[in-house]
Each structure stands twice: as structure tokens, then as C-alpha cells.
């Protein structure tokens, strides 16, 4: 230790001119602040900024020069024998020199910064805690640079053909790291990426330190042997770390549906029992796994997890096809992705459509036909209809539709668009239909009402729609309009009564409007309104903070859910109601069926479909729930901190 310190002290003393330069660098910002070019009142900024630039430049310069000369220069000038002819061990030589180089990299920039911190501390404090990560990164970056410079210096100065091997290995590492990170980025595992990046950085530093020690211990004064010794220690350590990271990444990306327990998101098909499920698994960091999952058979198809961020997947109405976005970019913030079609009713392989979209959530720029054979997608101002089997474009029309809009196939050859705009202070829902055969776009109708935005729901056959406009001033003045879905002609307009408003509402397949009506005292009723406007049933549901219509089931049955007002937690109640007579058929406590349908541009609800299972949360599990029989099937255990995406979005 003493000998290492002696060597380190000698190294520092040899470069004392650096401290003189640092002293000049400390004064220079104050000189710059006095120059006439500096505007009055900005002296502190000039001092702080120029000192930061000088310090960072000095740190980088010292890291590069220190790293490249630490051992390499004396090796190539045949002067390293100076130490080896003295009673000092390799560790003392290496750590003495390394310590001195790090000391210089840290202390000299600190000398530059110190006066500016004292004089212009307010400028530094203005960044809050922001300057510390920057300083930390500069320090870590400088030390990494020091190590890299040492490596490169040793490799280059050896003048050995071995550098070809080093180059090949460096290329392998440079290729391996992005490959390693890519699945994590696609799974939005940002914290894991930072952790693994830090681990690799530490491994690099450890490899340089251990390699440098072995270089001195085994290579000694011979340039070529020194190179070999450094390489023999450095690459295995770095390679080992990469392999360990690769194994960890392999494990992180491999959970099954049953392992998913945190940030669960589920989105079930409108018919059938397939659903999309995403979430994080225990001990797998923040990596988001994604699956297409059959709640009936338990079969799972692994897909990327980043759908959760972009809301990228939909099912065809018949439930036999899923369309998923597969990210193309290496980085998760690169939303460029290809639409992949998964046939679900057989063993057919996924179909790569070649359709690339860059759109982000909240709503997908595409929709799939009910039979899963065609896609309509937006590409700039154009909407294209695409035949999946032949991978052929059937039509491409310029629409100039701005979001928000909805769209769905009315039949195989007709696509309907609903575009919401403000026109002369009014809210206009304009309806268009695209004839795929003639490639003709025609406006078929319009619905005008007051408000600044709205919510649209269409019956499965596309004949009727429920439009609820959002009006400034609150829900009490928001009308519920049932209209013809093609022409926009009003059928019924439900205005709110004094002291009562609709909290959740939905239109059933037969055009019946179901509204969860809420009084000021939180008394809730489920009101069934016939297409003509007459109230069919008024079913008291008790006191609740929220009420929503979850699902319409075969046999004219409706699932309605009541829940406490946010942010209060409490038991939810799901009621199965016979819409024909208003009778409550089943009341289930403590479960929460949930569909993350918010990204679907198809406004037709999924009810009346021939499905049995609903993705449903209990406090501890995700289950498939049959609302008719009450039977449940376990899918995954929720982790103690495992809030679902819905709960997170609702702020529960």
C-alpha cells in the first residue's frame, strides 16, 4: 500500500503542471465574465457555465491522456523496467499509477469548479439536484474513458497483430450489447436496462482494473506479452459479464402468463375467449411480457410487451384473429412497428403484413374486419384497405381526417369512419363510408350537438349509435344521444334530470340505452330506456361512487358494475341483470372484470358475442370469470404491489 502510494505520489508530482493549468482554468471563467461581451447581470451564469465546460473538458482530456500514458507510454519507451528493477509488486505499480490517474481526473476539474461553486453557487443550485447526476455522469464517464484509453493505448502500442482479435471481440461486444438490450427495450424494461447498463459499466471498469493488474503482473515490460495479459484478463471478464447479463435477460423475457403479477393489462376479444394480457413478473424487473391467451384452454402465444405502451393490438370481431404491433426500432421510443396477424383458430403461423405504422396510443390507426381477412389503416392522410391473405392493397383513399376518429368495417367492402370536429362552436360527428370496390368515399351523415368532445358507441350490427358529448360545466348537462349510426339521425336524446345524471352508459344490441343514473346523494339506479325514449326499467343499485355497464351477454342480459368513488377503496359489486324484465339474476362482490379497450378504434361494443369468459381481477388474482355460472379459472397471482393497469389508470 505504501509503495503504491509512493508510486502514485510520484506520478502526480510528475504532472503537477496539470494543477497549474487547473488553477488557470479556475480563474478564466471570472476573466470571461469581465469581458465586455458579457451582458450585465449574467456574470454568475457565465462563470458557472464556463467553469463547467472547462472542468468537463479537463476531465475528459486528463482521462484520455492519463489512460493512454499510464502504462502504455513507458512500455513503448521501454521505461517500465524502472519499476520492475525495484522491490515493488505489480499491484503497487498498477494501483499506484491507476490511483494517480483517477486522482488527477477528479481533483484537477474540482479545482476548476470550486471557485465557481463559491461565487456562483446560486446558478448551480438553480438546477436543483440536476447538477449532481451530471457531475456523477462526468466522473463515471471520465473513469470509463480513462480505462478505454488505457486499453486502446496498450493494444495499439504493442504493434501486434493481436489487435485484430481485440477488434473482432470489440465488434462482438458492440453488437451483443444492443442485441441484449433490444428485447428489454421492447418490453419497456427501462429500469432493468439501466441496471444492466450499470452492471456492464462496472464489469468494464472491473475488467480494466483486473486486466491492468494482470497486464503488469504477467506482461511486465514486454509490450506484446503485456497486450496478451491485458486481453486475457479483460475479455473473459467482460465476456463473462455479458454472458451473465444474457442469461439474466433470457430469464427476464421468459415468464409464462401465470407469472405475470404486476401492472396487468387485459383486453379480451369481442367474441370467443382469447384475450391479450400484459404485465410484469416477479423477480423479472420491470420487463413487460405480452401474451395472446385463450381463457378457455389456457393456450398462450408470446408477443412483445411494448403493446402496453402503444396500445397496439386488436382482435377481429369473430375472435379468430389478432393483429399485433411488432416493434421494428431498437429503442422503445421508436414507435415504428409492423402489423403482424395471428390466426387463432388453428396452427397457422403469424403473417407479417409489411404494414409499418409509427402512430402512438391512445387510439390505433387501424382496424380489422369482422372476419379477420382485411385491415384498414391510416398512413398519413391516406386510409388503405389491405387484404391479409394476398398482402395486397385493395384501396387507398385520401381522407384528411384528423383524430379523434373511429372506424370499422360495416361489411367486407365497406369501411365506416366517424370523425369528430368542432364546427362553428358546435360539435360535429361526421360519418363517411368508403366503398372498397369503387374506392369511393361518401359522407353518409352528421350528428351535431353541443360540447367540446364526445364518446361514441355503436351497436354490433352498426345500425345505431350512442353519442355522449362532453360539455364544459359538468356531467349534469351532458346529453345521451341515440342515433342512426349511418346517417346520424337522432332517435332519442336523453337529457339529465334535475339532481341526477348518467354516470356510465351503453347501448345494447337492440338499441336499448342502459344508463347508470346517479343522484347527488350517490344513490344509483340502472335505467333501461327503449329506443323510443320510454323508460323500461329503473333498478336501484344502492350507494356507489361509480357505475358502469360492463358487458351484454347472450339472452338479453347485462352486466353492470358499481364501485366506490375514487380514491376510496372498497368492494365492487357486479350485477347480472335481465334486460327484458329488469330482474337482478346474480350479484357478485369483490371482483372487477376489466377490458383495456380504450385503444380500440372500432366503436362497436363486444357484447352479445358468444364468449364465456371475462378477464376479471380479484384482490389477489387474475381469473377468467363466467358471469352466468359464476365459475372462475385461475390465470395469475397478483403480486402484493401488483396493481393492474386499470387500477393505476383510475388512480386506485
Amino acid at each position, binding site marked *: 500500500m505504501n509503495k503504491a502510494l509512493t508510486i502514485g505520489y510520484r506520478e502526480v*508530482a510528475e504532472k503537477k503542471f496539470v494543477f497549474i493549468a487547473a488553477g488557470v482554468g479556475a480563474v478564466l471563467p471570472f476573466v470571461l465574465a469581465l469581458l465586455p461581451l458579457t451582458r450585465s447581470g449574467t456574470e454568475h451564469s457565465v462563470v458557472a457555465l464556463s467553469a463547467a465546460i472547462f472542468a468537463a473538458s479537463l476531465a475528459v482530456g486528463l482521462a484520455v491522456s492519463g489512460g493512454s500514458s499510464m502504462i502504455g507510454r513507458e512500455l513503448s519507451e521501454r521505461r517500465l523496467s524502472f519499476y520492475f528493477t525495484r522491490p515493488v509488486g505489480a499491484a503497487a505499480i498498477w494501483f499506484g499509477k491507476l490511483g494517480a490517474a483517477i486522482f488527477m481526473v477528479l481533483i484537477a476539474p474540482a479545482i476548476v469548479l470550486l471557485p465557481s461553486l463559491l461565487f456562483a453557487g446560486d446558478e448551480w443550485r438553480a438546477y436543483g439536484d440536476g447538477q449532481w447526476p451530471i457531475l456523477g455522469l462526468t466522473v463515471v464517464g471520465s473513469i470509463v474513458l480513462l480505462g478505454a484509453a488505457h486499453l486502446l493505448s496498450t493494444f495499439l502500442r504493442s504493434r501486434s497483430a493481436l489487435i485484430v482479435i481485440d477488434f473482432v471481440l470489440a465488434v462482438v461486444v458492440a453488437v451483443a450489447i444492443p442485441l441484449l438490450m433490444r428485447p428489454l427495450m421492447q418490453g419497456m424494461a427501462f429500469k432493468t436496462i439501466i441496471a444492466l447498463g450499470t452492471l456492464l459499466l462496472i464489469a468494464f471498469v472491473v475488467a480494466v482494473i483486473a486486466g491492468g493488474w494482470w497486464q503488469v503482473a504477467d506482461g511486465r515490460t514486454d509490450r506484446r506479452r503485456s497486450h496478451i495479459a491485458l486481453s486475457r484478463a479483460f475479455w473473459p471478464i467482460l465476456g463473462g459479464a455479458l454472458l451473465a447479463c444474457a442469461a439474466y435477460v433470457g430469464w427476464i423475457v421468459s415468464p409464462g402468463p401465470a407469472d405475470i403479477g404486476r401492472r396487468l393489462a387485459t383486453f379480451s376479444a369481442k367474441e370467443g375467449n382469447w384475450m391479450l394480457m400484459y404485465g410484469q413478473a416477479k423477480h423479472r424487473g420491470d420487463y413487460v411480457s405480452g401474451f395472446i391467451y385463450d381463457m378457455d384452454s389456457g393456450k398462450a402465444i408470446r408477443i412483445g410487451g411494448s403493446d402496453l405502451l402503444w396500445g397496439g393490438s386488436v382482435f377481429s370481431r369473430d375472435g379468430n384473429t389478432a393483429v399485433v404491433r411488432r416493434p421494428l426500432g431498437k429503442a422503445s421510443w421508436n414507435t415504428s412497428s409492423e402489423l403482424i396477424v395471428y390466426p387463432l383458430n388453428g396452427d397457422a403461423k403469424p403473417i407479417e403484413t409489411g404494414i409499418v405504422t409509427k402512430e402512438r396510443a391512445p387510439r390505433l390507426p387501424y382496424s380489422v374486419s369482422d372476419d379477420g381477412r382485411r385491415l384498414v389503416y391510416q398512413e398519413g392522410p391516406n386510409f388503405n384497405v389491405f387484404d391479409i391473405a394476398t398482402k395486397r392493397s385493395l384501396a387507398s383513399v385520401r381522407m384528411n381526417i384528423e383524430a379523434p376518429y373511429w372506424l370499422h368495417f360495416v361489411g367486407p367492402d365497406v369501411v365506416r369512419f366517424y370523425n369528430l370536429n368542432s364546427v362553428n362552436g358546435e360539435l360535429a360527428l361526421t360519418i363517411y363510408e368508403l366503398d372498397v370496390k369503387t374506392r369511393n368515399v361518401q359522407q353518409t351523415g352528421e350528428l351535431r350537438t353541443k360540447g367540446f368532445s364526445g364518446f361514441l358507441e355503436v351497436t354490433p350490427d352498426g345500425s345505431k349509435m350512442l353519442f355522449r358529448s362532453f360539455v364544459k360545466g359538468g356531467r349534469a348537462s351532458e346529453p345521451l344521444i341515440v342515433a342512426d349510426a349511418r346517417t346520424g339521425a337522432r332517435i332519442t336524446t336523453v337529457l339529465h334530470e334535475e339532481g341526477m345524471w348518467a354516470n356510465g352508459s351503453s347501448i345494447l344490441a337492440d338499441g336499448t340505452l342502459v344508463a347508470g343514473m346517479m343522484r347527488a346523494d350517490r344513490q344509483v339506479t340502472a335505467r333501461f330506456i327503449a329506443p323510443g325514449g320510454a323508460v323500461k326499467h329503473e333498478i336501484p343499485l344502492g350507494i356507489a361512487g361509480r357505475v358502469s355497464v360492463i358487458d351484454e351477454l347472450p339472452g338479453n342480459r347485462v352486466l353492470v358494475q358499481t364501485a366506490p368513488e375514487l380514491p376510496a377503496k372498497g368492494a365492487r359489486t357486479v350485477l347480472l341483470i335481465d334486460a327484458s324484465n329488469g330482474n337482478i339474476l346474480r350479484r357478485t362482490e369483490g371482483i372487477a372484470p376489466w377490458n383495456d379497450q380504450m385503444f380500440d378504434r372500432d366503436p362497436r361494443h363486444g357484447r352479445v358475442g358468444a364468449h364465456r369468459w371475462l378477464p376479471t381481477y380479484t384482490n389477489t388474482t387474475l381469473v377468467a370469470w363466467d358471469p352466468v355460472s359464476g365459475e372462475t379459472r385461475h390465470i395469475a397471482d397478483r403480486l402484493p404491489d401488483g396493481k393492474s393497469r386499470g387500477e393505476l389508470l383510475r388512480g386506485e
Partner: protein
Amino acid sequence: MNPADSAIRIADLTVRYGRKTAVDGVSFAVPGGSVYALLGRNGAGKSSLVRCLVGQQKPNAGGVALFGEDVWKRRAALMDRVGVVSEEADAPPEMRVAALARFSAKLYRSWNQDAVDERLKRFGIAASSRYGDLSKGQKKQVALAMALAPSPELLILDDPTLGLDVVARKVLFEEVIAELADRGITVLLTTHDLGGIEGIADRVGILRDGRLVLDEEMEALKSRFRRVRFPSQPAAFSDATLKTAAVRAWGGGTEAVVSNYDELAFERFRSASSLNAAEVAPLSLEDIFIAVTGEGVQS
């Protein structure tokens, strides 16, 4: 010689650089308290051997032991007992001589600063001089002063006279090395200055093409090598019992360097060959070196 008494013991030392063999199975030992001169032409393998000797280079085969310990494994500890003057000036050029001494003093268990000051004074080198500003010879002298300061038991000098003027060379050999030898310090040196070591080396080793072709006591070496001239008649040495290191025509006669000269054997050879007048002269170490390492060497 008992190997345990050896200050240096080299066994089957082999050093290779790729396909080239620089040192090829060299073995020899240097008894404690003796002065060993290792000679060889440029590229003979001396530097590689010395680097192995001071633990700076790992041999491809064989090994070096100093005071019975493997120098590769125990270099740091052994260097406390060994003074080294390297072939090339390796001290940091920007260091002052005084700082160099202060730095070195902290690394050794014992350090005789007075001896350093005295030697520097004798060499005429100011302690305030920058090492890089010194001449090649002065650098060697500073290195020697530093090497001797910890009172080493073994001194390894790699071409110590390189760059020294005649006076400095004389001082080095006659005063320093001879004095050290008198004090029982083992010295191994490589040099091209064969005249300088002739009087002080106890043993000589000669490397040729990486092989140790000669390893012998100086006295025995000098006694067995003779230059023999038959000025008036040619002589054929082919069947002789005398081994010749070199044979050439000399006027009307023959000159040969005999490497196993023995007075009785020579007289027998002369009588048998009916050779009359013969001049027999001892060889200098330089002549012996040339005879051993030069072209046409037979043994």
C-alpha cells in the same frame, strides 16, 4: 559447485519470440561473491536472458533462481537484494536526480543516501540535474549509484559501460566492480568492453545465437586458449589432438587459435608433424571471444 551456494542459477532457459528462439536451453550458475561476465554479439540473446534474470520476462521454458528463489514468482522481494543497471536509461526523464533517490529510498528496506551522494560527487553529477538532461554515460552512472544504495547482495549490470568515456569506464571497472567483488558482492554483467573485465571477472559465459557456447573460469579459459604460429611452414591440424578455434595461413606458414592448449600435447604434435619453429602466445579475452563467436568457429 553446490547449486545451493549459487547467487544465480539458470536452468534450461528458453525464450522465444514467435518462431524465433532468442535464448535456447541456457544453463549456468554464478557462485556467490564472484564476478560473472556474460558476453555475446548483438542479437546473441543477452538482453532476453537479463530480462529473465531480473524477473521482467517469463521464459518459455526453464527458469531463473536468485538466491535459490524463482525470480519470476518472487521478483518484488528479491529486488530488495539485487541492484540492477538496465541497458537502457529507464528512469523518468523529468525527474531530478535527488527526487529519483528520494523515490527509490522509499521502496527499499535499507538505503544508503550518503553512498549515493558520494558516488554522484565522484561521477561529477549534480543532484539537481534533470535525469533526461544527462548524457547517456551519466545516466548509467546515476543508475549505478541508485543500484548500489540499498547495499545489494547481487549486482546485475547490463552493458554498464555503454556511453561511458574512458575515465568513467576505468572508474567503473577498477574501483566500483572490483571493490564490490572484494566485499563479496556477486556481480553479473554483460558488456562489449572485454578489456575492462579481463582483470576482474572470475567467470565468463559466451552466448552465440541464443546458446551458451562457453561457460568457464576466466583463468582456465585463458590458460587453454593459445595462438600458435608456424611462420615458415604450413601445418595441418586436422588429425591433431589439439582443438582449433580458428586456422588461417600466415605468410608461408599457418596460424591457429588452439582452444585446449597443453604444453606436452603441443610438443607431441610438433614432433609428429616435423614442425620446427613455433610461436606460442596467450590470447586476450577479446581474441578468445572473436575466436569463439566469429565465423569458422569449430568448437
